[in-house]
């Protein structure tokens, strides 16, 4: 974050604080100033509640997303070995990919049931699996033919081909999808928790909304927002430094 970003955010919070304190006639419980929201983070009981629910959401999102990511990669690679199979699977993956992630939640409530482990896990899986599968199949279908020829000539083992040539480029090509879906997983789990689950930050947000604890509700939303920004920044950094990261891994392994 550069100075301009910092100034812009500071000014935004300043306007919020000023508006809530002096311009809006609504009670502070309905439109709390920014400092009221910040004050919550000094409250140990709030912090405990927030952290315990946050860890639930974090675990659900991470597990479902990771399983979806790896299964998407593996099945995509397996399907792409046979061009004819990928021709058949690609339209299905496209169809699944085009369904908005949040739209899976009501379907899964019926199909999976209101289960605090399975429902968010399947929902986050459905966020990551179809787009990753779609990305892998389409990337491998359009992979540079000459590069594949080169690996066929120079690499004796399939492992080397995938490790040094195919996988790094594949991951880099699908990183924008991974970034979008990693954020989407959090949003979907948040919605699922808000709708039917008894814990998680989505549930917490709903509770604070129904009890008109606006400062706490905004604090929860701020935490969600910061998490999504962190994911975006982290994956953005990875995207920009991907070649460097990959090469340093090889340096350690082979040289």
């Amino acid at each position, binding site marked *: 974050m550069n100075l301009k970003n910092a100034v812009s955010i500071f000014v935004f919070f300043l306007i919020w604080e000023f508006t809530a304190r002096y311009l809006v006639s609504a009670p502070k419980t309905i439109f709390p100033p920014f400092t009221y929201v910040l004050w919550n983070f000094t409250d140990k009981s709030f912090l405990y509640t927030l952290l315990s629910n946050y860890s639930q959401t974090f675990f659900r999102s991470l597990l479902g997303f990771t399983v979806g990511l790896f299964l998407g990669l593996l099945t995509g690679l397996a399907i792409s070995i046979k061009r004819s199979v990928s021709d058949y699977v690609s339209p299905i993956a496209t169809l699944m990919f085009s369904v908005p992630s949040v739209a899976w939640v009501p379907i899964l409530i019926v199909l999976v049931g209101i289960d605090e482990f399975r429902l968010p896990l399947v929902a986050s899986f459905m966020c990551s699996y179809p787009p990753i599968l779609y990305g892998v199949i389409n990337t491998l279908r359009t992979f*540079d033919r*000459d*590069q594949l*020829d*080169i*690996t*066929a*000539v*120079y*690499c*004796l*083992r399939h492992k*080397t081909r995938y490790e*040094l*040539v195919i996988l*790094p*480029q594949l991951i*880099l090509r699908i990183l924008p999808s991974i970034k979008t879906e990693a954020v989407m997983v959090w949003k979907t789990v948040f919605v699922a928790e808000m709708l039917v689950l008894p814990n998680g930050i989505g549930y917490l947000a709903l509770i604070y909304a129904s009890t008109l604890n606006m400062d706490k509700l905004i604090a929860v939303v701020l935490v969600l927002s910061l998490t999504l920004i962190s994911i975006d920044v982290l994956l953005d950094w990875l995207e920009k430094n*991907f*070649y460097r990261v*990959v*090469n340093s891994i*090889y340096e350690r392994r*082979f*040289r």
Partner: protein
Amino acid sequence: MRDVSVRNLSVTYSSKVALKSVNADFPAGSLSILIGRNGSGKTTLLKAIAGLVNYSGKVFIGGEVADDSPPSLRRVSYVPQNNALIPSLKVWWNIALGLVDRERDPQIIKEKIEEVAKLLDIQHLLNKYPGELSGGEARRVAIARALVVDSDVVLMDEPELSVDIQTWQIIRNNILKVRKSDKTIIVSTHNFEDLLPYADVVCLLHEGNALFVGRPANLRTENMPLDVRAWLGSVIEADDVECDEGDFCVALFNGYRIYAGSYRKSFRSSPRILILPKYITVDQDGVLKGKVVRKIKHDTGRSTVLVSINGYELVTTTHEVLSEGAVVGLKIEKAILLG
């Protein structure tokens, strides 16, 4: 050293026939060049030898049938037209690609890469990414990757592509350096005038057929299709050749002296020279006089005509409107000495 032979080699891409029953021999340790227009089958022939396309017929490498061997076990190196450097790998790793599975000792890998980088003068590029290289640098890296592995056969697809003249001279010199290392080199090229004087074998492909395979000195054009001659030029027998310490040669034809570039091989008493259409100009002041035998084609104000001189037929293009039977003067700027 291993030779390469192909027998009745045919390749079909969906409905298009790319190679039609091609037979060719490329002796061990030789420099062979594949020439032909775009789409003539040069790249396909290289890929078939490397085992990168499905084909019918036979490919022999070192006298053994290679048809069932995967590309990685054919002991060939391949430099594709677009270099195909792996963008995610640094130059060092791009060159090491063929060594990772073949050499266990990292120290040996390092030494081999340093050696080939020195040969091609790319030591300063080893820590760069392919995206940071110029066209010529990328070409040299692709060649380094081909040379670093212990292969017997090096296949290069149009190494002159997208490089400037100076870089091409460096690459050409490197090809000639590699030739001394006993590898069998097969190069597909459009820039054959620079490699023909050094080539042991020339393979002329036209619409998937091999019109000629053999020593350049045996190349004849008189019976070739006119469109091939309009592109390739005409082979004539010179009266004599004078060379200045083997580096600067002049061919004598009909009392006319034609610059024939450098030539490092011995040639017979009446050597053959190849005259490219681009080096012949119709000029009424030209000392050589010929008779227009036939108009081959005419487009956008330029005519391609066949001119007969002393029983030889040369192809040239001109802006002048010439009728069949007209006597014209010719100037020949340059010829390629075939030996």
